[in-house]
């Protein structure tokens, strides 16, 4: 017992008992003890000077933290839309049967736990699972059974990974990553995957004044690649002008949008370019503190990223007097997330990085005024920062010649679903839906979910739709849904996702998401009415007008888009006489019998219904 207490103390001490590092402390405790119990929470509360409630709030918020022990081997199996398309159900059944415990539980001996989890950024190689932070891709029922056997025999997770999958391509095969994950770069474009020489951008950057760097970024008309599309130069300028003794740059690598995996590949193959982008931003805004917020599912990249940072420090591209520029001091630390989609929202990300529940903040103040630990902060997407570094190296004109008038440059898309060539495509903005479908080899597309669940669901027939901020914006996901699929099943999956991932803080989002999900389910079961369609629209409007953050604003999109673009799907499900609420006496008696445990009514009693 005392040993256990000492272990917790050591972990807290490693982070200087700093309550702002609570998330790191909890992740380490979870890794070591497989859970953060109430007792542990009480002890940690004392160590870091918080209340038990504070600790509990944070622990209970994140998917990868738990108050009860997870397995010695904990399998987080992705049940996102692409996984379901590629056979999630069969793989889940195989894991569950072989291990002898249902999904979302742990075997009696505590050895294996299996948990369904939201998309983990492997859309081009589903079904994927995370077993103790190691990624397993392209799973089949056979592989699942073999993996359980290995776990029962006590093999190390890394050994299991090398046994069943060869290392992936590119940097995935480096010892510091050593993962079976594949990059699947189908089309390398000129910006994020274009020619690049380590350190050039940053060395050029310091020959300019911060104002000149800002002017270049503004001239390029670069807009944020995370989805909202805010002009990057303007964001940097707001931060640069905000009063405060210290400024901060945070990279948002939380990509949790189901169907997006572009940041994963950028972090694997273009980490140097992207970190240089962070330093360029720091120089422009005068920041000395930097953090990369890396989603917990990408922990397997951490060691590699730390090595890149070390190399940059050794090359004087981070640290003090960067690139020989006196007074330009900036460094970056890696902050891990612990499984929560809403943390991709910038203010929620900041809360999370400060060790709290990842709940969006009330705004104003905006992060540029008061962000990470109240410092004026720039938060940018990985792709945005990588693009910024290239702009400094190759020029604003070079960049703005690509793309469209309002959407300059390129966009990295993660294409997955029903197509022959899933993977990463860096294309110029303005490319049409039809061109992308052809490129990816989509044979019979029905719909395309652009930008993930929070984006838009397009009818695949609208081939001329341009992918751009002014046309159809995309944060990166491009999920192709074939004609043979039940589209509303996928929409149902999206709504379940939002219901789980809403932070629960504001009432219209918390209640609105499950209400939409339930209503859709009722319709799918043939019990919907026309009133339900109206009520879903009304409710969606309320959410779009009243919720605190983007999650609530965009959560109704899948339903609204399919009601608009695929009305026949709903029409087919609404019974003809749905103006009258049907009362099925037999079904009601059966349900009542089931509820009180009476013997069911015999089947032959079925009578003609009204």
């Amino acid at each position, binding site marked *: 017992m005392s040993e256990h207490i000492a272990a917790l103390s050591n972990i807290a001490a490693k982070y200087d008992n700093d309550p702002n590092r609570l998330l790191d402390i909890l992740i380490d405790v979870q890794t070591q003890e497989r859970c953060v119990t109430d007792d542990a929470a009480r002890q940690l509360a004392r160590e870091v000077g918080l209340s*038990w409630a504070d600790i*509990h709030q944070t622990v209970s918020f994140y998917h990868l933290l738990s108050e009860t022990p997870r397995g010695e081997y904990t399998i987080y199996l992705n049940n996102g839309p692409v996984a379901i398309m590629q056979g999630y159900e069969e793989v889940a059944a195989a894991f569950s049967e072989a291990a002898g415990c249902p999904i979302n539980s742990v075997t009696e001996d505590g050895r294996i736990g299996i948990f369904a989890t939201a998309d983990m950024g492997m859309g081009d190689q589903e079904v994927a699972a995370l077993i103790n932070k190691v990624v397993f891709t392209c799973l089949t029922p056979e592989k699942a059974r073999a993996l359980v056997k290995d776990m029962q025999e006590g093999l190390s997770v890394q050994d299991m990974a090398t046994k069943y999958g060869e290392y992936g391509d590119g940097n995935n095969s480096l010892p510091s990553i050593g993962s079976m994950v594949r990059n699947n770069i189908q089309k390398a474009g000129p910006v994020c995957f274009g020619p690049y020489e380590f350190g050039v951008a940053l060395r050029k950057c310091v020959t300019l004044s911060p104002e000149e760097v800002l002017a270049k970024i503004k001239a390029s008309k670069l807009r944020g690649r995370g989805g909202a599309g805010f002009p990057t130069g303007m964001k940097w300028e707001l931060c640069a002008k905000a009063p405060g003794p210290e400024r901060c740059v945070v990279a948002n690598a939380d990509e949790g949008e189901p169907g997006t995996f572009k940041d994963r590949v950028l972090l694997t193959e273009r980490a140097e370019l992207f970190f240089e982008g962070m330093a360029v931003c720091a120089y422009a805004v005068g920041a000395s503190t930097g953090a990369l917020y890396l989603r917990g599912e990408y922990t397997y990249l951490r060691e590699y990223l730390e090595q890149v940072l070390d190399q940059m420090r050794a090359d004087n591209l981070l640290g003090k007097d960067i690139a020989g520029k006196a007074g330009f001091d900036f460094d970056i630390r890696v902050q891990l997330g612990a499984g929560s989609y809403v943390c991709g929202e910038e203010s929620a990300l900041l809360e999370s990085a400060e060790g709290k529940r990842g709940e969006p903040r009330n705004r104003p103040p905006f992060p540029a005024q008061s962000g990470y630990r109240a410092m004026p902060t720039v938060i940018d997407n990985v792709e945005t920062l990588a693009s910024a570094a290239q702009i400094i190296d190759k020029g604003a004109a070079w960049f703005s010649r690509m793309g469209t008038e309002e959407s300059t440059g390129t966009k990295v898309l993660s294409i997955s679903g029903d197509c022959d060539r899933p993977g990463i495509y860096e294309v110029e903005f303005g490319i049409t839906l039809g061109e992308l479908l052809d490129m990816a080899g989509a044979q019979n597309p029905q719909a395309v979910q652009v930008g993930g669940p929070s984006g838009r669901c397009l009818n695949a027939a609208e081939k001329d739709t341009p992918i751009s901020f002014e046309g159809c914006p995309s944060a990166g996901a491009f999920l192709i849904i074939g004609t043979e699929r039940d589209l509303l099943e996928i929409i149902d999956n999206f709504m379940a996702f939002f219901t789980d991932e809403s932070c*629960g803080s504001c009432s219209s989002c918390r*209640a609105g998401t499950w209400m939409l999900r339930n209503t859709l389910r009722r319709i799918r079961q043939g019990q919907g009415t026309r009133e339900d369609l109206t009520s879903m629209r009304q*409710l969606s409007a*309320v959410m779009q007008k009243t919720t605190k953050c983007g999650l609530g604003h965009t959560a109704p999109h899948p339903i609204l888009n399919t009601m608009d673009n695929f009305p026949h799907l709903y029409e087919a499900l609404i019974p003809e006489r749905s103006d009258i609420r049907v009362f099925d006496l037999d079904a009601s008696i059966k349900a009542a019998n089931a509820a009180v445990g009476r013997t069911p009514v015999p089947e032959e009693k079925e009578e003609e219904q009204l």
Partner: protein
Amino acid sequence: MSETIETSSEIITLTIDGQEIQAAAGQTILQAAQKNGIYIPTLCALHATKENGLESDIAPGTCRICTVKVNGRTMAACTTPVAQGFVVENDTEELNDLRKTIVELLFVEGNHFCPSCEKSGSCDLQALAYRYQMLSPRFRYAFSSREVNAESPKLLFDRNRCILCRRCVLAIRTEDGKQLFGFTKRGDKSGIIMDEELVKNISEEQAQQAMHICPVGAIIRKEKGFDTPFGQRKYDQNPIGSETVCTTCNGEKS
């Protein structure tokens, strides 16, 4: 979370529903409205008074019932600071319908049975349902399973009636500032938790405060729930919104 609001002496002019009002820079739209006798409904934001024992106004920004339109865009009045020239719409059909919808959602999300509730007649949620003339919610009930905690000697905590506004989380603290209440989980599983150890030792005054600041009947001071008979309770006399400026403090912070 913007819990407290700093104000300065700079004077700002704005309009709410066409009425020109003056406010101090740093005040929220809600505070400015209250000061000028304009009613904006709230369930989570709370003005500090002697009666509720708050030292400063709280605005968790969670209930969204105070949503107003500012220069055409919807915003929460309790967390948006005033700015020169703001044109605020508040008492409009569209916004009142939004508010009614939120009240309905809160009713179907929890398990609210007004006739048996100790807070009936002084419950803000019930009073708003009357104000917006909710007859029956247009949404189906969730029939969620919620726990009642009656372990603590002074407080009864009924999660069925909780609307997760977080007033208790922000307001009820130990002398050294530790939270007695917390927010657990997320999404449709979200809830309020009590630190039972700390709540066990709560003072009479704090128990009273906890019941008082809870806008619904989720936090009840044991054995005191029916001290005020039905018919003599807060909203039995005057409907919610009829008394905008707090009479005890006349709108001033105590």
